[in-house]
């Protein structure tokens, strides 16, 4: 017997589905619909966009029939549906809204398609229909690939190299060439990039507003968001503008360029949610249309869940750092001038923007203490206890903020470096004298 899980490829929205309803007098109605969304092994959701005859019939009789078509094989199935409820907000609604925007973009219907609700249906029966089917083979076994990628999480110690290795493994085992990890700064309602793979620039420190684009919506709703065609409302042009809007008082030179593809056709964002709390997003994109399927979403969500737990474990500092690597600071003849703006904790190194926000405040604290006392050893604990840093009590993402700082410093020439020096400890390595300037704006 055919199960809904077996026919998810029919529900990608590539080929329209065909919906029949009837009114209470038994007169049928049939129309093309743009989206039949897989909810779980026994339910689908249809997009409710207009209050038309189809909608009236569904509410009146609470039954429907839909034919779906596999875009790869031309396999066709008829689903008997029982209407359950309509959702107008929340994770399911947002996932469908994003997907619908992609479908609308592909079919030139951007101005017509607008999701008003997600109509949830129980699938009573699936009938396989005779059709001329094409042979089609899957490019890789997703379960096996997931296992190999997830193995990376156990092989690495430090967060930075771990994220780099993970994104490498996505390319090696799943063929995903463009990806990044962003962490959530809940206080600022922004996500900042801590690792990227496959782009011309790393974009470390670049920001996306919570709720903006595929990444922002995935973080805001705590649900995977997947889009098969570039849609204007989810494009990063819009997302970046929105993110810039959040920090519109900031100087333009403090904006780090977002590294993403200029014209991606497929994007997927998976929330990192250890213990049900969103701390970041794993993101991938492609120039290929419909690159990410339901199976890819499952695979990447499994990896994202493991990564989320791994980051959470790292934050507890319960590990031994047996092999501590010492970064090489470059020799530097003169002094290094640091300027700090108290307003948003922006820090410049020799007129070049370095970092801002909580990571900026952390760096200024370390640099100030080093300049005053020559101190180089610091602990995570003292940062957590310092009220001036305003770290949240739980899920403070301190490791991610330190990673961001570490990577931004490395990108700024390596005259100042931070590195782990032991359990819950790290070291500030400075090549030469620091000159500190504090701006009170």
């Amino acid at each position, binding site marked *: 017997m055919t199960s809904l899980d077996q026919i998810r490829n029919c529900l990608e929205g590539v080929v329209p589905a065909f919906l029949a309803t009837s009114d209470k007098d038994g007169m*049928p109605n049939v129309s093309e619909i743009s989206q039949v969304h897989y909810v779980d092994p026994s339910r689908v959701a249809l997009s409710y966009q207009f209050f038309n005859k189809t909608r009236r019939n569904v509410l009146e009789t609470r039954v429907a029939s839909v034919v779906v078509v596999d875009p790869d094989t031309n396999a066709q199935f008829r689903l008997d549906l029982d209407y359950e409820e309509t959702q107008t907000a929340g994770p399911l609604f947002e996932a469908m809204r994003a997907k619908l925007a992609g479908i609308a973009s592909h079919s030139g219907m951007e101005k017509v398609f607008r999701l008003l609700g997600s109509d949830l249906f129980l699938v009573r029966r699936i009938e396989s229909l005779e059709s001329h089917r094409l042979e089609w083979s899957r490019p890789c076994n997703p379960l096996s690939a997931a296992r190999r990628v997830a193995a990376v999480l156990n092989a690495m110690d430090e967060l930075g190299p771990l994220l780099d290795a993970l994104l490498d493994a996505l390319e090696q085992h799943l063929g995903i060439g463009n990806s990044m990890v962003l962490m959530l700064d809940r206080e600022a309602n922004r996500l900042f990039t801590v690792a990227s793979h496959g782009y011309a620039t790393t974009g470390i420190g670049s920001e996306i507003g919570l709720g903006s684009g595929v990444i922002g919506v995935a973080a805001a709703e705590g649900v995977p968001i997947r889009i098969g065609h570039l849609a204007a409302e989810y494009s990063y042009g819009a997302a970046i503008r929105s993110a810039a809007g959040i920090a519109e008082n900031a100087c333009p030179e403090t904006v780090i360029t977002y590294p993403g593809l200029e014209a991606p056709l497929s994007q997927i964002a998976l929330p990192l949610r250890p213990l049900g709390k969103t701390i970041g997003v794993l993101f991938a994109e492609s120039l290929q249309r419909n690159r990410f399927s339901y199976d890819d979403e499952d695979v990447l969500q499994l990896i994202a869940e493991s990564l989320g737990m791994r980051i959470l474990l790292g934050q507890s500092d319960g590990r031994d750092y047996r092999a501590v690597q010492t970064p090489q600071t470059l020799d530097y003849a003169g002094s290094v001038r640091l300027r700090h703006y108290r307003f948003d904790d922006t820090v410049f190194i020799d007129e070049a923007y370095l970092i801002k926000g909580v990571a900026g405040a952390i760096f200024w604290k370390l640099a100030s203490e080093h300049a005053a006392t020559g101190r180089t050893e610091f602990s995570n604990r003292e940062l957590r206890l310092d009220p001036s840093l305003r770290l949240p009590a739980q899920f403070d993402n301190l490791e991610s903020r330190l990673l961001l700082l570490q990577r931004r410093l490395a990108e700024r020439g390596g005259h100042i470096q931070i590195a782990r020096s032991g359990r819950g400890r790290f070291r500030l390595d400075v090549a030469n004298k620091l000159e500190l300037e504090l701006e009170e704006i």
Partner: protein
Amino acid sequence: MSSVVVQKALQETDPLGLAVAFAQVSEFCRNGANTIFGVVGLDRRPLAGIALGCPLVGPDRVRVLLARSPNAQLLLDLTREGRIALTVSEVPSHRSVQIKGDQAMLLAARPDDIRTVLRDLRAFRDRLIDADFGEGFSSSYCSFDTDDAVAVEFVPREAFTQTPGPQAGERLLRAAS
């Protein structure tokens, strides 16, 4: 003649919008269109199906060609109930028309039905390829076993615009005005 006058004249001569629907369905099929239909079973549950095309549209009957094997239950329900909804959607414009009718009868497919539908399906396949559905999929979707083809004829009663949008489901003339 102004469009208002034309609409008024149409409403008087074609109050159910059927003549407009027949013209549009014929045009869509020639250009390349998807044809779907719906029936209601004895248990009052609707059933959706994919048809092959419309070899005859109006004035008194509409003739639809479909494959018997994937639509066995629908054909059974159709011969019992007699009521049918047929929607034809032009690719890639999405312009769609729905014709509803009754007194549906199951008939043998005639050679000229097959010829007409093969011609229209070639146009449909080409539009699908143009729309990036791929040659393999487009050809498979538009192919059928001629021995499995059957015809259904019904008496058209009402016509509606089914083009996606807020007016989908409205009577054709009202939606067009």
